[in-house]
């Protein structure tokens, strides 16, 4: 536990070491928030409800998505894949530490940094210009729990596709596919409720929905009581599935740790 805490602190500090990247990121998130909000507002000119979201839900969704984008890190991540490719993974394996435990703790240190420094300001800018939905205290707490689990799901997924570097020399292809899957099917680009019929149902059933759609719906008060607990339980389930698969892949991969880097 103490070790995980120490690793997590490094995860935070590593991102805190580049404050200008944070400033640039806040700027970008804000601009994208405005663009996306105005595009979706245009949709509401002709209707008052899309997939069960009224206009305030949708605008809130847009700003929340921008705010948690970095926290759940749906963008491509390949730090681990690069370590496998250049052979540095060997130096990780001569340490008495499990790589999955390391990266999980590291990411759980990184995420709060991004939540505070990349999430807070863009959302405040959005709230100054648009009328956004305010969650009930219970929903707010549930949102934070759900967001934390979403980070684990995301890391579980990223860890898994990064491990493909054991078998593929270049994982750019895998990255592209994973990136479009997680951007589109998580609800990052637009709410999954906007997807037509069966596509929406499939998207809701996939693990990616646990990364963005689930926490935002909780903030918007779309789930109550048992259903709310069910959403978080489903997220936890997907987190365990990804971590389990990652575990198996790591075992298989380190067995065939090939000649890369002599």
């Amino acid at each position, binding site marked *: 536990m103490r070790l995980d805490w120490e690793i997590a602190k490094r995860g935070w500090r*590593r991102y805190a070491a580049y404050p200008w990247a944070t400033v640039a990121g806040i700027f970008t998130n804000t601009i994208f928030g405005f663009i996306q909000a105005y595009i979706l507002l245009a949709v509401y000119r002709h209707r008052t409800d899309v997939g069960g979201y009224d206009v305030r839900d949708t605008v809130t969704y847009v700003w929340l998505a921008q705010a948690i984008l970095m926290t759940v890190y749906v963008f491509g991540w390949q730090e681990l894949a690069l370590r496998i490719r250049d*052979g540095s993974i060997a130096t990780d394996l001569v340490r008495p530490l499990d790589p999955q435990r390391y990266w999980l703790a590291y990411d759980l240190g990184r995420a709060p940094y991004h939540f505070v420094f990349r999430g807070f300001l863009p959302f405040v800018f959005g709230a100054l210009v648009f009328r956004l939905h305010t969650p009930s205290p219970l929903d707010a707490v549930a949102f934070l729990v759900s967001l934390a689990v979403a980070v684990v799901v995301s890391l579980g997924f990223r860890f898994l596709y990064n491990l493909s570097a054991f078998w593929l020399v270049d994982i750019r292809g895998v990255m592209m596919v994973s990136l479009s899957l997680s951007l589109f099917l998580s609800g990052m680009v637009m709410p999954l409720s906007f997807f037509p019929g069966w596509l929406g149902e499939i998207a809701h059933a996939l693990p990616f929905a646990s990364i963005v759609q689930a926490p935002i719906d909780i903030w918007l008060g779309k789930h109550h009581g048992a259903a709310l607990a069910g959403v978080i339980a489903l997220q936890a389930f997907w987190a365990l599935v990804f971590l389990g698969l990652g575990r198996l892949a790591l075992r298989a991969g380190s067995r065939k740790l090939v000649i890369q880097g002599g």
Partner: protein
Amino acid sequence: MIEVDGLSKRFVVRHGRFRRERHVVDAVKEISFRVERGELLGYLGPNGAGKSTTIKMLTGILVPSAGRVSVAGLDPSRRRIELARRIGAMFGQRVQLWWDLPLVDSFELLRHIYKVPADRYHTQLARFRDVLDLDPFLHTPVRQLSLGQRIRGELTAAMLHGPELLFLDEPTIGLDVVAKQRVRDFLVEINRQEGVTVLLTTHDLGDIERLCSRLLVIDHGSLIWDGAIAQLKERYGGERTLVVDLEEPAPPLDIAGARVEKVDGPRQWLRFRGSASELTAQVAASARLVDLQVQEPDIEEIVRRIYAGER
């Protein structure tokens, strides 16, 4: 400390995108050796000879295809984590420190990874700060360190938890003379004072000469030399090469105590033992000398010569 018996590693490599051909690569072929506690030995061979593969098997990262390995009484690949606590490793060309964080941050984290008690950690660190002169850059982010500073940091990182056995893969590569000397002094000190067993992989003959008493040489996956340095030098390293430029092309010079290895126009290569000035005088007496140069045998060449079966 290390017992290796008939150790082999075979890789199956597939080529081609669609019709994949299988190629079998024997990276390490039935090598056997023993290393006693407190030894400081060199392990060398040309690139691709099987050095890293051996070290990966000794540290438990790779599972051997055949043979038996025991390191500190443990089977490395079965008990990798347990072994990891007792050994240290440093790879000169890889960064093991946390790139974006101050050096001391990496040390602190390693302390927790290896569960080093706080008081022991502080005495260890104080010692390394002194011996390796870390203080000027202890709080500098690793990415801003010079190569020499980083290597000193990496050595500290490998030694903080007080390992019994240290694997070093080219620890002095790319270092200037001063930095090299500092690293060598450090290795001698931990070996003599703490009895740490050190297995050193290098291309640098200087490292070997100043540090090791025993040498293992591997080529094409086979162990082709296991013995004392003095013996090796006497056999192969004692010969140097004198390159002479004569005024005009001449037949191979006939000089006692030297033999001509190669002739290229007015330039000749003479292999010899003993004094270079004596030989130079003899050459000058028998031909008109324009320029000359003495070449020390490098380790690559010695390895090549051992492999070529020059005995």
